[in-house]
């Protein structure tokens, strides 16, 4: 075979071999591509259907004029600009709900975390007897159903609940003793206009509005008890004038959240206690013992050993607390439903009310939910910045 031929044939052979390799490579790539899509596609489709599509639909709805009915294929609906966002920002109820959410974030970060940390430290350092018992007691609220907890506290704060009962008993006892003093001053059943005026003064101005002509009418009423036991008169006057305790402060926007915040503090502090305690138990006890031998006080041990060792846990707990605060719904919904007069509404309840109650307004509800997402992003960015500065020191 001529060298040229051989060369030519060799080239041809090489070319064929190269093409074969290329073809195999290409085939490989196609196969790999198929395998890749076969494995990724189901998850990708699920993601698109379950996560991406609702998010995109939420964004689209928030800038639409959709007003109910069949969403696809029904009455046409279109772009309405940022009308729903403008409506949200001009609604005082939105700002009230946002303020309430901020309160919850604050009570979580500045209440639950420090308290959880202190309780964990006390239990860890065995500064109380039966630390296991206290650990259980403090953690129990956390394992109860939020609905049960909500209804429980709703009953406690209700006008017929134990707090009201206690307050009514106290108010009644106080008024009764004042009445006795007034009656003992006149002696016997000597009902004068002056005595009636004294009783009306005791009762306060609101009580006078119940009468058309207070002095003679109350006098007649008291005189109708002539011959009846004195105790019955006192009892009935207490019924008449002692203002029943009612959690009226719940109607005041600045005070209404107090019981809710208290319950949130009561319920979730135990969770952080467990988190901190578990991490404290990882700290080498010899370090603490050495510090104590060197004369460190409990405060110094906590300040210079425990807190630095748990800084990462503290930051992570803060992230948990913030995200939990923004997504809270069930507890407050069960406890107050956002009432009375919507003063205890938080963003999630505000959104729910717009999305589902009365005539649903889905563009508005979706605008609210997207604003909630943006608020979450802002807070998470803030905590990430904190984490960058203080986190990562955990051993």
């Amino acid at each position, binding site marked *: 075979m001529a060298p040229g031929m051989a060369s030519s044939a060799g080239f041809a052979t090489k070319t064929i071999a190269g093409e074969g390799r290329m073809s195999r490579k290409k085939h490989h790539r196609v196969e790999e591509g198929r395998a890749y899509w076969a494995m990724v596609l189901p998850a990708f489709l699920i993601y698109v259907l379950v996560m991406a599509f609702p998010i995109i639909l939420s964004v689209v709805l928030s800038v639409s004029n959709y*007003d*109910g*009915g*069949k*969403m*696809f*294929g*029904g*009455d046409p609906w279109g772009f309405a600009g940022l*009308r729903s966002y403008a*409506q949200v920002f*001009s609604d005082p109820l939105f700002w009230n709900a946002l303020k309430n959410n901020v309160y919850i974030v604050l009570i979580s970060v500045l209440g639950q975390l420090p308290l959880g940390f202190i309780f964990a430290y006390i239990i860890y350092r065995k500064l109380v007897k039966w630390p296991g018992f206290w650990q259980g007691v403090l953690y129990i609220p956390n394992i109860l159903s939020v609905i049960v907890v909500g209804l429980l506290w709703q009953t406690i704060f*209700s*006008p*017929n609940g134990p707090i*009201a009962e206690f307050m009514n008993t106290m108010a009644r006892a106080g008024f009764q003793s004042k009445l006795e003093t007034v009656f003992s001053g006149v002696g016997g059943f000597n009902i004068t206009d002056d005595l009636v005026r004294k009783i009306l003064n005791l009762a306060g101005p*609101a009580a006078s*509005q*119940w*009468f*058309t002509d207070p002095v003679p*009418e*109350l006098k007649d*009423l008291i005189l109708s008890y002539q011959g009846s036991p004195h105790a019955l008169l006192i009892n*009935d*006057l207490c*019924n*008449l004038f002692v203002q*029943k*305790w*009612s*959690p*009226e402060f*719940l*109607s*005041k926007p600045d005070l209404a959240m107090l019981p809710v915040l208290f319950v949130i503090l009561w319920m979730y502090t135990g969770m952080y206690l467990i988190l901190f305690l578990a991490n404290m138990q990882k700290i080498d006890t010899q370090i603490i013992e050495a510090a104590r031998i060197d004369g460190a006080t409990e405060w110094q041990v906590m300040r210079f050993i425990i807190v630095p060792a748990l800084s990462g846990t503290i930051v992570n707990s803060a992230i948990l607390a913030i995200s939990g605060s923004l997504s809270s719904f069930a507890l407050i919904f069960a406890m107050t439903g956002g*009432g*009375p*007069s*919507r003063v205890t509404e938080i963003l999630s309840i505000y959104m729910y*009310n717009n999305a*589902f*109650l*009365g*005539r*649903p*307004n*889905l563009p508005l509800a979706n605008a609210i939910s997207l604003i909630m997402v943006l608020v979450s992003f802002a807070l998470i960015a803030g905590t990430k910045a904190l984490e960058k500065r203080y986190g990562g020191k955990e051993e």
Partner: protein
Amino acid sequence: MKKLLIAMLVISMAVAGGFAQEKVTLSVMNYQQADQAGYAEDVAIWQKFQQDNPDITLNIEVLFNEPYHQKLQAYAAAGTMPDVFYVWPGARSAVVHEKKLAKDLNKLLGAAYLKDFSAAATNPANQLGKYMAMLPQSFTYSSVMYVNKKLLADNGFALPKSYADLKKMVPKLKAKGVAVAMLPNKDAWPMQSCLFSTVVGRMAGDAFMDAIVAGKARFTDKPFVSALEVIANMYKDGILSREDVQVGYGEAAGMFASGKAAIYIDGDWRVSSYITDKASGKALISPEAQESDYVLLPLVSIPGEKNPGVVSAVAGTGWAVSASIPAGSAKELAAAKLIKYLYSPEVQAIRFGTGAYVPTRKGVEAVVDPLVAKVPLFYADNPKTCYVIDGVLDPAVYNVLNDGLVAIGFGTKAPAVVAAEVQKAYQNWKAAKK
């Protein structure tokens, strides 16, 4: 011969097919709660239909309260409305009426069938969409004073006729630890629906509300503010107790039965709370006491009223048929059959007997507890009605009013402030509708 045999076979198959019963499945959304009076009877009603109609299969989905409305909204958005569903005549089921998701029952059931129902029930004007999307089972009076006549008599009082009569009762009844009138308002809607609507009807009238809806009058106008002032005065004068603003709607019926108040203000539907439970034979108020000690009265006359004696009333709930069912189909026939069964004299008599409502179907009779029997008499004695506000206004507006009435109850907002807030909500709603 062969051809003849084939022809006979074809004909016999066609005839057999024609006579064979076509099995139809209807999806139904029922509004039902297991702890409601009459639950067992209601379940039996559905079971009987299924037994009597083996050719119709019912896929019944049962929900109650907000979850019901939410699911119906979801079905509406998905365009998959159930074939037969429970619906409100007003804004509560706005999407059904406005998007015409239900068939016109006037056409489906026909005039001959509907003539057996009261004129108010079959008047399309009483429904939001101004067509007969549903057939109201009842015409509900939303404002009734349940009066404990015996308790009043024991304290030397006759049945009240005027606001002054109520005010006169305050010192003596309060001294006995009894509230003059009870209206629980923790849920915010009862005050608006069960008292304020009637007060607005008395002080301003339906024409004024029509003018408001048309944008020709304002909530801040004197008649509306005066109506709010009546409510504020009822709290200030001790007729209503401020602590009742924190009492849940479900708690009050029992409190009234136990003598905590001389008068209980609620809708006529509340009678169902006092009927005898057939299973236990117990009742919150015994039938004997219902007969002798309790009466149903309209709201007393109030100072400054222009329309004496009117009481707020609204078409009640009822059944609707999905508009997506093809006309003339077997499914439509089955749905019509189910609707006619649900509104039949027999079923309506059972519902009347359980105190669920007084039927709009004429001539329905049932053995009922005395308090239930007093409801039709109340209707007859008080024929002049006015709007229930939440049946006229959009939720975006009446929810603000409801919250304002709660604030008036607490004494934290003045009537004029609430009126201004409602006006603002109305303007915002109007602007959003453009």
